[in-house]
């Protein structure tokens, strides 16, 4: 009956991601999704500049942290929202899909950023 839930682990990633996304995600969406495409800050995200940023280990670690924590945060909340909305059938499958997506994004980010740094 008193079986420890692993929600503690998941929630720690969710909460860390929640704090991070609360502080930086609106700024990031504004810059990368709106300002840059509309031509503000011309050349700010050019290939050369971003390559310098992400081949630097510190830049790569920052972006890895952002992708890992944002996806863990968002996919945990997404899964919980399905429960709130009344989804009861196939919840197990949804949890594999949700947390699997977050884990996959984390692994891909790790591999690609590592390749960028070591090349």
């Amino acid at each position: 009956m008193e079986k420890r839930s692993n929600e503690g682990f998941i929630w720690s990633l969710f909460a860390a991601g929640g704090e991070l996304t609360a502080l930086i995600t609106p700024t990031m969406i504004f810059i990368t999704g709106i300002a840059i495409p509309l031509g503000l800050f011309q050349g700010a995200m050019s290939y050369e500049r971003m390559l310098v940023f992400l081949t630097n280990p510190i830049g790569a670690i920052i972006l890895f942290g952002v992708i890992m924590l944002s996806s863990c945060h968002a996919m945990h909340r997404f899964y919980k929202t399905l429960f709130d909305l009344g989804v009861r059938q196939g919840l197990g499958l949804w949890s594999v899909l949700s947390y699997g997506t977050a884990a996959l994004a984390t692994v891909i980010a790790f591999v690609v950023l590592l390749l960028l740094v070591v090349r």
Partner: protein
Amino acid sequence: MNRKPYIRKIPTTWWLQNGSYRAYMLREFSSPFIAIYTGVLLVGVIRLYQGPEAYDAWLTALQSPLSIGFSVIALALALCHSLSWLKLLPQVMPIQFGETKVPQAVLVGIHYAVFITVLIIAIVVIKP
């Protein structure tokens, strides 16, 4: 006498019932948008690894009306998430010095200051 407790059903649309439930659900709806946005970032990293042409194609794709429209909605929902998160954090981690609790308004204020600082630093750094 036999008891016969009556159990009321919860409608699937319970979250429309009042203002705080609606605000809660709006905040929760930020999650698919933040997830998709994170996916867009991840694609950008992969394209950067693939080389200049691939990366420029990603930048061009960001200029499509679909992408900008998505970003506007995602920004609005991300702001909902930020506002509620920054407001609620002092409840999760109260700070107490001796016999004085730091007022929640002070903690929220500090949090907003960090948010604004991130925005300013990002703009200063990104400016070519």
